[in-house]
């Protein structure tokens, strides 16, 4: 249990850019407090310092982590990612999820999966999977079921096109309130989109031109600020009509 500390204010770096080496918190004047440190932070004796460059985020009551956008993905349990099958083995499919190691998808981790109805995925199949466990040094394990054992939208994604993005853009696309460009395009065009937190997203629509438009618009809007995104969206929609 955490007792009220003498200084209960969060770090002054919250929501600001930090670089490796910045001391986020000094623990010497905080007593009896439980802190949860997420990615990018490290405890160095009496101080918490940042290891990654990015924005420091804080969630009540006690979670701190550094958020940054990269092209590479570090697998962690519970993430929904887009994977590509690169190999099939007797026990599992080998799936690439843009991480340091290839992930294994056991052949039985599908809803109602038994030895008799193993799905046949050829090399290059695009799957929407969930990361079950990802320990450092081991190949991560993914699954096409949710925690309860239901299929829940996981599985093969047919047609459409997969675009590469950074992890930051994927997080933006999944955030709420929704991404302005995504929302604006969704109001005018009809398409379906699956976003993987590993820096991949898949778009499908009835027309190829719609897919290309949506994908490129999202990719280009990554570096724009909110206001710029709105302007870009307006110009884009005007050019479609």
């Amino acid at each position: 249990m955490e007792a009220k500390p003498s200084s209960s204010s969060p770090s002054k770096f919250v929501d600001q850019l930090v670089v490796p080496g910045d001391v986020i918190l000094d623990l010497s004047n905080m007593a009896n407090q439980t802190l949860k440190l997420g990615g990018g932070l490290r405890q160095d004796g009496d101080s918490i310092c940042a290891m990654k460059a990015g924005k420091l985020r804080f969630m009540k009551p006690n979670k701190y982590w550094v958020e940054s956008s990269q092209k590479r993905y570090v697998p962690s349990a519970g993430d929904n990612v887009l994977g590509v099958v690169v190999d099939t083995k007797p026990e599992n499919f080998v799936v690439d999820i843009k991480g340091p190691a290839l992930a294994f998808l056991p052949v039985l981790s599908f809803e109602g999966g038994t030895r008799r109805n193993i799905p046949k995925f050829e090399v290059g199949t695009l799957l929407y999977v969930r990361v079950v466990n990802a320990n450092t040094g081991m190949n991560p394990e993914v699954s096409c079921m949710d925690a309860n054992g239901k299929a829940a939208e996981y599985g093969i994604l047919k047609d459409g096109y997969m675009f590469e993005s950074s992890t930051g853009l994927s997080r933006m696309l999944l955030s709420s309130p929704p991404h302005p460009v995504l929302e604006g395009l969704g109001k005018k065009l009809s398409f379906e989109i699956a976003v993987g937190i590993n820096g991949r997203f898949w778009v499908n629509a009835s027309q190829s031109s719609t897919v290309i438009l949506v994908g490129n618009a999202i990719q280009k809007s990554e570096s724009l600020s909110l206001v710029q995104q709105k302007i870009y969206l307006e110009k884009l929609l005007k050019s479609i009509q």
Partner: protein
Amino acid sequence: MQKEKECQVSYPLCLSLPFALSGPWCLTPRIKIFAIESSFQRSGCGDPLASSSGDYDYKLIAVVNWPEVLRHYFSVVTTVTATAAAAAAAAVSVAVVYRQVQFNFSFHFFDREKMEQRLASSLIMTVNEKKFIENALLSDIRVDGRRPFDYRNLTIRFGSEDGSSEVQLGQTQVIGFVTGQLTQPYRDRPNEGSFAIYTEFSPMADPSFEPGRPGETAIELGRIVDRGLRESRAVDTESLCVIAGKLVWSIRIDLHIIDNGGNLVDAANIAALAALSTFRRPECTLGGEDGQELIVHPPDVREPLPLILHHFPVAVTFGFIGKENTVVIDPTHYEEAVMGGSMTATLNTNGDVCAIQKAGGDGVLQSVIMQCLRIASVKAGDITSKIKNAVESYNTQRSLRKIKRHNPDQQGSSDVAKHHMERLTVGSDESGIGSPFNEHDKTNKRNSTLKGFSGGPASWDPYSSGVDGDALRTTLASRVTPLDKHKEESSPVNPETKPSPKSSDTNSLASTHEVGLEIQQSKTLKDAVKPKHKRRNKNAS
């Protein structure tokens, strides 16, 4: 977690024992052994390549590859198991196999990790992408929104040194660097210099590029660029000769690929052409006591000379995608992974086809090839004009820099000094007025804003502290024409030696030249200054 490892072990020793019983066996069989590890313990550091840090149990299943070996082996096994002595031999053979597997374990562990890494480093394409690219092309649209015969955005930039260029074609980035060295000529070509192209595919450009020896694509790229320049005689090698039979210039073109976004050949070719156009070699004269010594003049003493390029061979790459052989120009990284074949045509604006490269891939109809060549000649014209514009603006910038550099070095006669100070204000004038260093803008702006010139020398000019702004301003106001004349004199020096005329530039220059001439005849002091300038240029060329 269970992992399977494949170890390939060839062991003539193990099988020779039982085979000795069955007969002579000249081939060493290759046997696949599946070793299943059941317990897997990792140390804390988690380095996947750290071998032998865990315990591995082996379950040996020996499966023989070759059918003949299989037949023989089974026959041997039956004979082996039949006799007691042979059974011992079999046990020995199995034990030897086991040991070899243990011995080879760490080696093959690395092998599998490498296989994983190799899989990860090659581009991973989904079936969706391939189908989508082909379908989208049926409606004439490409994944980045281009039409099938559109090029990506081309930017050509130059480095601070002569002969260095950086080309960006979409996401592809190539750096070209040209250097020259004095060497002995080849025996059969005593009057000609030589040039060579070296390519380096940086591993930063693409996960599949490995450092070290150039791979197949690197060598092919070098060959295409080389053939375009050499066979078409674009680079004039005879002008590179200094002393026939003894000393010639050897030009080395280095092409570094720093980002692979597809279509490296075109970008590398443009980088080579841009770098060659801006390269300057030092001037060499024969002198010394007996007139036989070679003096290489450093660049600040004598203006270095550009290379003579007769024409610009531009490479245009086509990709053939799908069964209907849809043609796309300038394929991206993803399109290259999907395409069935590609063709590179090197042409120049005169309509000559310098080279065509089609190395394998899908077959293409002759009519398609002719159509591609026609399209390529149009694209070559576009690219050539872009390269020429970029080179021109670089050259004018360069001549501006040379003008400013003359001021502190040469404190000659008074009118020379005045002359230089005027040129200095030209330089600072430019910086004061605006950044676009274009010949048109400069002359126009100068003419229009001279009366309204209110700023002093630019603050970034390092030599501006030694110049009196007010005095120069008055001299500037009274001497409109010499500045125009000087600008014209400095820039036509380069076109004299360059084969391609700067048509657009000379037009504007001609108009100002005429203006200058009219006012010129009334003043004689300028006539005294001008010939000196001309004389210096004649020596340099």
